[in-house]
């Protein structure tokens, strides 16, 4: 398969960026998007004319949350329920022009090319996305009775890998799905309930302070979430926040 790539190139956080055109050819349809970028980078290095395209990646199996590209107007590309590293080139047609951009949001400034600074997510977590109690060992966990429903929903929420696709795709750059996943996950479990009030207040306050937008319930975040985190967790976050405030 052959592709024309329009990739956002930006030297550093302070520089102005622009799109640059590249072509890649003889790409196998089973190649992942990041492998295709590796192939492009190899040829750029061999040519020696310009620096390879910088992009974030780590595990390349959809669990670390490092990769994240805005591909043809979609977070993590045209497929759903996957991260960019899990996106294969069979989702495109040979001859396609593919536009690759970094996440765009005020709290996610571009550091270089396609890499953004997602420290703001860490700051939200530091504000309250944790439990302070010792959860004990296996037998202690077994002594805490948790309903199947709560366990399942907490587990679904805990699947969030913090990739930032929710923010990237939201028309308001809202981090509500990310914050909701953390709050919903912890508030459903006995150890997390203890700090639920403070957690909801602090995490929402930090989210607002960092410049993320509000939630319009468009549902785009949930559609693009590689872990399919449901919008109902945002309802849970709203409940937790309002309970904490009233």
């Amino acid at each position, binding site marked *: 398969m052959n592709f024309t790539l329009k990739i956002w190139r930006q030297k550093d956080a302070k520089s102005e960026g622009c*799109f640059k055109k590249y072509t890649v050819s003889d790409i196998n349809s089973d190649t992942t998007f990041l492998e295709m970028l590796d192939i492009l980078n190899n040829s750029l290095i061999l040519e020696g004319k310009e620096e390879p395209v910088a992009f974030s990646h780590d595990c390349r199996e959809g669990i670390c949350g490092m990769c994240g590209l805005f591909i*043809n*107007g979609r977070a993590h590309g045209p497929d759903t329920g996957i991260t960019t590293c899990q996106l294969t080139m069979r989702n495109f047609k040979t001859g396609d022009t593919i536009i690759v951009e970094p996440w*765009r949001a*005020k709290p996610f400034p571009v550091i270089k090319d396609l890499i953004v600074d997602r420290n703001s997510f860490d700051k939200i977590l530091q504000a309250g996305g944790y439990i302070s109690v010792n959860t004990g060992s296996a037998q202690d966990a077994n002594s805490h009775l948790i309903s199947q429903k709560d366990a399942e929903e907490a587990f679904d929420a805990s699947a969030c890998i913090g990739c930032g696709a929710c923010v990237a795709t939201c028309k*308001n750059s809202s981090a509500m799905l990310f914050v909701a996943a953390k709050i919903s996950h912890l508030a459903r479990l006995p150890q997390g309930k203890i700090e639920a009030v403070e957690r909801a207040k602090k995490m929402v306050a930090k989210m607002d302070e960092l410049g993320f*937008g509000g939630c319009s319930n468009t*549902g785009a975040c949930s559609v693009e979430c590689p872990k399919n985190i449901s919008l109902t967790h945002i*309802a849970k976050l*709203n409940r937790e926040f309002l309970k904490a405030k009233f």
Partner: protein
Amino acid sequence: MSNIFSSSIGRKLIMSISGLFLISFICVHLSVNLLLIFDDSGELFNLAAHFMDSNPIVKIVEPLLAIGFAVHIIYATIITIQNKKTRPQKYSVQNNKATSSWSSRNMYILGTLIVLFLAVHLSDYFYKIKFGIMPTITIDGTIMNDAYLVVSKSFINHFWYSLLYIASGLFLGLHLTHGFWSAFQTIGWSNTLWLKKLKTIALVYAIIIATGFSIIPLYFLIFM
């Protein structure tokens, strides 16, 4: 409760509560309006309009309604302005269609169209009934405004006016397809089971409202 209404969720709470209040008002308004097409003598509509005009409870609700509208509009504006600031550099391509409905992304535009309609609507009927000179009619010995005559005349004689009302009914319907369930979601009254149910109820309610308001001018245009 400190700073709740300056938080993003608090502001949305105001939007949802004022929105639900306006949703319930719309339901009452449509019920009265539908009397326009169920009784061609206009007696039922005039009686209902007179009841609404003279009922003490309505007198109390009226200013609350004005406040409800004002709060909903003002907060929508504040929220929209703040949300616009969150992405200084736009995407060169964004395929929104694949991820969300048009109505959900354009609630402020739909709301603005409804407000523009509201301005025309209030100046034509509400202002006339409250402060203008209205034709009167006597029903069961009571002299009352002949609101039916004013409304029916304006629909029959002015094609564009009817069209405005039909279009506005549709805009309101689109606004409600998202606004209705979104209000419950913001309050936190939603879960895996209810999210789908709320979306269905919202769609049904929106269709009833849009159809209900639009068929009234259509009825006068076609049958009268």
